């Protein structure tokens, strides 16, 4: 953090900006504003941040505008491939129609489509009951059925119904639910869990690590010994035990996952606190009689915030990954709620017949993880510029 920005050895040249002759009451350029400037100059990080905002908004608002509920089952459209044009397709209308007519137990005489409505003429050996209309009502393919005309003998009838246009941009899943809506709902779950568990981990980790590093000595030894032991337990074992304890309550469970993930954070913060404690500015504060609490608050905490912010951005994707891994194993959120990991698990079981079930959720998950990683890297470069 010197004004000498050239990393070479010996006497590096000093940039010509000299604070010797400033304008009156000069405004300082804090390390934070420097970091912010570097971060906003990093194109990958900015693009990632924008992407994450868009993704979050999409997951929050998207399910309201896709026109489907994530639990709605379209029995007519099980496992239909993604398409930009609405369902039913032209050739499917006939099939859907025949299906309905068959249920009415009448014979199809003729049908044609006009102005988004189908007009159907049916005939039967017995008079056609007007209540057959409800078969149309039940079909997800048709809306607003009407009886246009009934033959005087009552043996034939002309009905019309609007064709219900459904868009399945990402296709539908095994039970006929809209994959786009489900992917966005899954995104809500994954992102929320990532943040929740990430925050828990940071909260515990920072408190524990700062206390251990700042207190030092015996206390530090014991506290870190405990962390070591937790480290040597197989991680997945701990997580499974937590799942068993907390059942399928995902909020509790991910607070618990956060409570497992804090170990790294604690080590990082402890290391920081230890090194800050040795800095001369802390000794100077001690020499001035500043109390330990004051030193912790004014010197130790602000100087650990940088690494904590970086680690937090890198921790969130880790937790999302862990969540999707657990969901993949069937230990995460339960149907009908879903998460990216659950969707990917289902998708990978269906690759031969419906590969979009794997591809779309994977794309969402990996692109989000990518963006988080790039943002974390950018943040680290911005806060610690000597690495690049």
């Amino acid at each position, binding site marked *: 953090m010197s004004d000498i920005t050239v*990393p070479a*050895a010996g006497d590096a040249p000093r940039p010509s900006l000299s604070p010797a002759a400033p304008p009156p009451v000069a405004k300082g350029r804090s390390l934070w504003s420097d970091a912010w400037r570097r971060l906003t100059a990093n194109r990958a990080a900015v693009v990632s941040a924008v992407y994450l905002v868009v993704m979050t908004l999409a997951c929050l608002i998207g399910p309201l505008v896709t026109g489907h509920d994530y639990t709605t089952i379209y029995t007519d459209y099980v496992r239909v491939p993604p398409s930009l044009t609405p369902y039913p397709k032209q050739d499917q209308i006939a099939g859907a129609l025949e299906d309905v007519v068959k249920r009415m137990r009448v014979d199809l005489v003729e049908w044609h489509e006009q102005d988004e409505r189908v007009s159907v003429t049916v005939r039967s050996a017995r008079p056609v009951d007007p209540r057959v209309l409800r078969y149309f009502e039940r079909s997800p393919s048709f809306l607003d059925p009407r009886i246009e005309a009934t033959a005087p003998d009552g043996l034939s009838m002309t009905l019309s119904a609007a064709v219900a246009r459904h868009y399945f941009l990402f296709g539908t899943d095994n039970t006929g639910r809209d994959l786009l809506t489900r992917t966005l709902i899954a995104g809500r779950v994954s992102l929320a869990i990532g943040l929740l568990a990430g925050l828990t981990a940071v909260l515990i980790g920072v408190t524990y690590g700062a206390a251990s590093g700042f207190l030092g000595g015996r206390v530090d030894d014991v506290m870190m010994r405990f962390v070591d*032991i937790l480290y*040597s*337990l*197989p991680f*997945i*074992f701990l997580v*499974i*035990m937590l799942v*068993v*304890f907390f059942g399928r309550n995902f909020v509790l469970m991910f607070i618990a996952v956060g409570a497992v993930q804090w170990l790294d954070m604690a080590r990082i913060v402890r290391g920081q606190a230890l090194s800050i404690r040795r800095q001369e500015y802390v000794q100077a504060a001690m020499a001035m009689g500043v109390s330990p609490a004051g030193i912790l608050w004014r010197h130790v905490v602000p100087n650990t915030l940088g690494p904590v912010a970086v680690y937090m951005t890198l921790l969130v*994707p880790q937790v999302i*990954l862990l969540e*999707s*891994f657990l969901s*993949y*194993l069937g*230990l995460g959120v339960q149907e009908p709620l879903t998460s990216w*990991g659950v969707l*990917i*698990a289902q*998708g*990978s079981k269906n*690759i*031969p017949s419906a*590969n979009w079930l*794997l591809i779309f959720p*994977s794309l969402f*998950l*990996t692109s989000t*993880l*990518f963006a988080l*990683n*790039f943002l974390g*890297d950018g943040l680290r470069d911005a806060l610690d510029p000597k*690495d*690049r």
Partner: protein
Amino acid sequence: MARYVLRRLLTAIPTLFLIVTLSFFLLRVAPGGPFSQERGLSAEVKANLERVYQLDAPLWRQYLNYLADLLHGNFGPSYNLPDFTVADLFRVGLPVSMQLGASALLLALIIGSILGILAALRQNRGVDYGVVALATAGSTIPTFVIAPLYQLVFALTLAWVPVAGWGGGALVNKIGPVLTLALPQIAIVARLMRGAMIEALRANHIRTARALGLTSFSVVVKHALRGAVLPIISYAGPAAAALLTGSVVVETVFAIPGVGRYFVDAALNRDYTLVMGTVVVIAVFVIVFNLLVDLAYALVDPRVRYE
């Protein structure tokens, strides 16, 4: 040196003991048992089974029994795979998992190191950006995405390899699992190596070597690389322990008869002995590889001396 190894192994005993104890009680405190869940077992059958396996004894008794068995090298029977002992399962599965894990680790160390070195030597240029992007991708895309995608492309679309199965250990069957295991590791090793090399190339003694007119090869390989492998060594230890003990995802997706699958199933089914056996095996691997890391460190860095 021998004394150091001996002392490390001796201090490993309390660690192992602590892990066994902690896991044992953690497992037993958890609700449910091996014969309690939706098994459709009558109370009588359940009681009988629990008597056979001595699960009706007081917990401390069971604990002592388990410790005693463990000391005799007896991991006990598996509750959910009743025809096998835990030792049987490991005897069959461990070689398979270790084979895949070792291949993946080797691949990762070689490819990852080469990529990392190239990136460091061409810092902030095309090669570097390529490697960094690849490393981010490798460590970001989960294995449970890579594995089915691999199947989709190479097995189902191109039909170059079988979709899944062990095939008695045929090479074509191993490509997918090994690649899937190796890819994230390649990414991590490349990242570590890049960082370590950049750091090493900045060291003052590299400037000395350059000032002495040593060849670029000597500067990079003899002076920079040797220091840069230290972080890789520290990483390789725990990574080896994790890889050699199998992966749930890879073994499930590719239907590999390794030991990685056991852990999750066993824990969910409260197959106590199998879970404990897995915990012990993993812990032993971790302890051994940590020791190997420290010994390798001493070999590379003369400042590290063990007495």
